[in-house]
């Protein structure tokens, strides 16, 4: 990563410090819940203050490795990490369950992960359940009223991004000058599989962002709400989005947020235009026969 002097890759903990109010991050503590200190070491969770408001922090820690699960290091989300992240979310919900939406604590995801644990033990025990449970927890928190903001500071790769990022209300990303990577697969792999020249693929990706790697393409698809051009701005931009999301939820406009909201945004930005037409046509076709299924 020499080419990016100021990259945030591998610096999840630094990012926490740069974002939250100074010296407010209490690791492993969420409400009354206390996470075991050495559990899921490649994820860092806890509570901090953001502009005087408590927030739940869920970040990758690429400097650690999990000695029980040898494929989990460098920011990989293993089973322990995913369940730890899920618990952080569930206990945030629990802590604020009696509070109105305006007081439900924001959940901030600091994203720098290359993937899910690709190991044999992971498959035997069911890695899919671990990442799945974290996503369900985030979806529940979001629908309960917690603002969930993801900020991609480094790598947001494929399934790991799905798990840690794509269930947020809003997704933000540092610009590509920071070496930020958002993709399912690098263009080189796509080139190998489709047997197409990388130059041609690059040319195609400018007009169609659907397979290209990079935050700017996700932006066009509605997958990234806003790109943060200066790392110093992270804190303010995140805080602004927290306010935006509170306001939207206060109006009950949940559908403008989260994955569904990103679909609408994608269409607005001209990135994914066929899916909504397809769904509208499905609705229409169902309506024509609905009676025989709903009132049989």
């Amino acid at each position: 990563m020499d080419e990016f002097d100021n990259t945030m890759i591998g610096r999840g903990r630094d990012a926490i410090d740069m974002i939250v109010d100074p010296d407010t991050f209490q690791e492993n503590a969420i409400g009354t819940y206390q996470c075991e200190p050495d559990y899921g070491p490649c994820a860092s969770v806890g509570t901090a203050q953001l502009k005087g408001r408590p927030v739940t922090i869920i970040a990758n820690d690429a400097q650690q490795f999990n000695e029980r699960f040898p494929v989990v290091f460098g920011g990989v989300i293993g089973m322990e990490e995913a369940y730890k992240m899920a618990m952080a979310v569930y206990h945030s919900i629990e802590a604020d369950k009696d509070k109105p939406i305006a007081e439900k604590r924001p959940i901030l995801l600091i994203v720098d992960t290359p993937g899910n644990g690709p190991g044999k033990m992971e498959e035997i025990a069911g890695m899919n359940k671990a990442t799945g449970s974290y996503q369900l927890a985030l979806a529940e928190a979001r629908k309960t009223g917690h603002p969930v903001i993801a900020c991609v500071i480094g790598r947001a790769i494929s399934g790991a991004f799905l798990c840690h990022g794509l269930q947020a209300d809003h997704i933000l990303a540092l610009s590509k000058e920071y070496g930020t990577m958002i993709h399912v697969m690098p263009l080189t792999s796509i080139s190998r599989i489709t047997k197409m020249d990388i130059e041609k693929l690059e040319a195609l990706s400018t007009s169609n962002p659907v397979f290209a790697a990079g935050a700017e393409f996700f932006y066009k698809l509605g997958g990234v709400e806003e790109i943060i051009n200066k790392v110093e701005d992270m804190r303010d931009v995140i805080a602004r989005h927290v306010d935006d999301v509170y306001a939207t939820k206060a109006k009950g406009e949940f559908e403008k947020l989260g994955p569904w909201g990103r679909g609408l945004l994608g269409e607005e930005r001209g990135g994914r235009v066929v899916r909504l037409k397809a769904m509208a046509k499905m609705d229409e076709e169902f309506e024509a026969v609905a009676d025989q299924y709903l009132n049989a």
Partner: protein
Amino acid sequence: MQKWDELEKSSFLDANARQRAIGMTDKGSFTELLGPRDRFTSPHLPVLGTAVEFDDGMVTGVGRIGKHPVFVISMEGKFIGGAIGEVNGGKMVGTIRLAEKAAARIQKEHPDEYAARRPLVVISFETGGVRLHEANAGLLAHAEVMDAFQDCRHKLPIICVVGSKVGCFGGMGFVAAATDVIIMNEQGRIGLTGPEVIEQEMGKEEFDASNKALVYRTTGAKQKYIMGDCNYLVEDTIGSFYQAIADVADKPMAEIEKLRRIGSVKLVEEQMGLVKLVGDMQPKDAMDLWKYYGNEKPEELPELSTAEFLKVVKCRVRN
């Protein structure tokens, strides 16, 4: 198209997505939505020189089991490995949303009969996850599906069916895990990382992807059943899947909730217990766990027929 009665007797594994969709609902009840005649092909494949399909590799529609409307999503593994792109991803999300809206309407129009008329979503997974030709759109669609699942929670059951050659991997692996009920035949597989990638990451000595017996022991239906991750292990006929679905259709939601593996603090704690066991035990092979759960001769389990297996197998006990 084959007659429904013949479909019920035929192999789920060998069937195509449309045959499965028709056969998982009552005779003559299935209406395809956004079928081939709508010609909603992927707009992204042609520029990459890749063949298209009129239904974009996914059959979606609605049928009935008794009075229950059944919203069906059936993936076609023969088309680009069943991978998810913009259009078929949209079809998947659209179908789940239709089910949720239908549930609301039935609540309103037939409040007394909701249990008998409660809709269900049935998803036959046959996919490796994201379609790389339109990877970004495919990825975003996965998140939308999880979002839509959460909206259906406690209202109507989402049933995962895996009985195909491709199995269910990649991002769709955790989508499957997030459903209420999982039904598999012996040939079904669910996982996150495919065997080739594990081999690449860990070396052939640790995991030989060409050793299919090993692959099935790791992610196959019998393993999932022992681990409590598969609720119904059925014979490989479309009719067996239909029967299992019909069984779920009439169960109260509270009972269906008990079939889940993730989705609440309690369930996550339960899974954390399993992860602790695995971390302590460091199993080299799924059979180590089978033995731990009381199967004296784990090596014999793969050889048993489904019926024999169900008779003798000892599974992880869930609280």
